[in-house]
């Protein structure tokens, strides 16, 4: 079973690497969206500092969602998804591996690059680790929940937009806790509580989402 997980993760990373321009596009999208806000509302430093956590988190949400529609679509089109359904290991395990690979490709880079964006927004240096940590804990939840939506909308008319309609409302708690942890820390109250809650969300979605993704895939593949 561990072998199957490693096999799927390695496969998806290899595929992503051979199409690395796609990863770069999602990352660039994140940076551009985050850079647009100062252009839209001005560069008053206090204002920027106040909105930074929210803006960075919303940009992360959108960027992680953009790559979701590709998560199963290509495997569906070329038939490899059917082979995964007929594999020797439970589908939930495969689903978790797919979500993990999606996170490594689309979530992890966001957490790594967010400190740079934080500089643009003049976020105090003490808050940067909190921001990065909140993204590290929160983006896997986005990948796991998003994969449910991606599996449900597989091969459906207007799948991409529909996917965002399904998934974004479910992202609300992650957004609130993620951005909130940074705001709490900046108010001097410490964001630990929110980070712990994010971690709890991560654990809960690791436990339940793979099952839901697997059922969604079975439903969509009939």
């Amino acid at each position, binding site marked *: 079973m561990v*072998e*199957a997980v490693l*096999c*799927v993760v390695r*496969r998806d990373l*290899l*595929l992503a690497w*051979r*199409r690395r321009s796609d990863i770069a596009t999602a990352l660039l999208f994140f940076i551009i969206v985050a850079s647009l806000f100062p252009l839209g509302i001005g560069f008053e430093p206090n204002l920027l500092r106040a909105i930074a956590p929210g803006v960075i988190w919303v940009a992360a949400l959108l960027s992680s969602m953009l790559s979701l529609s590709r998560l199963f679509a*290509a495997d569906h*089109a*070329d*038939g*490899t998804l*059917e*082979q*995964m*359904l*007929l*594999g*020797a*290991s*439970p589908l939930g395990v*495969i689903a978790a591996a797919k979500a993990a690979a999606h996170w490594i490709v689309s979530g992890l880079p966001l957490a790594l690059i967010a400190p740079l964006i934080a500089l643009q927004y003049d976020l105090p240096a003490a808050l940067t680790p909190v921001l990065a940590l909140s993204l590290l804990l929160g983006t896997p939840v986005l990948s796991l929940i998003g994969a449910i939506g991606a599996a449900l909308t597989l091969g459906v008319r207007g799948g991409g937009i529909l996917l965002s309609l399904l998934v974004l409302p479910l992202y609300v708690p992650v957004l609130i806790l993620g951005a909130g942890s940074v705001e709490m820390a900046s108010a001097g109250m410490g964001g630990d509580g929110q980070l712990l809650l994010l971690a709890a969300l991560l654990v809960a979605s690791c436990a339940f989402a793979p099952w839901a993704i697997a059922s969604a895939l079975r439903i969509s*593949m*009939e």
Partner: protein
Amino acid sequence: MLEASGLQCARQGRTLFRSLTFSVAAGERLRIAGANGSGKTSLLRILCGLLAPNEGEVRWKGAPIGTLKEEYTKEIVYLGHAPAVKDDLTPAENLEISCKLAGLTVKADAGLARLGVPADVPVRKLSQGQRRRAALARLAVSESVPLWLLDEPYAALDTQAAATVDALIAAHAARGGAVIFTTHQETGAGASRVLELHG
């Protein structure tokens, strides 16, 4: 080995077949024939458990496949319409990955050589026929898997590759495996039995 009883399948509000009952024993080669849209692919998908029949059930060695789950999928090879190879990987990588997912450890190169597919060129650069061969190479390394379910294995193959597939199927049946396959043309493997679907 495999028994289907009272299968009924409706797609898009149209009944494709009903009360379909048959069984497949070791060493049998069952060809499913029928016109386009008569439900050949749906039947194969039901037999491998991807599709739930509206009525009836499929049993593997006496147990319904719905309860066996991975215990059953370990015992089958299903090659569907789509070749199930990734364009960005080489045939060797494709074969190794699909076998690992199926729980087999194999020598990919031998299988690919049997079908005459180059091992280390990205699939993107191969022709349609070579892609099919890269997919069918899975059969050359699946001797130990008892049941093969093949959807149109001869499509887009030249006579030489078709003969190789024939030989693979015949050898599998000879060693006690079972093969269920669909074709719409009369050519192709000597089937020990034909099941005709009337739309």
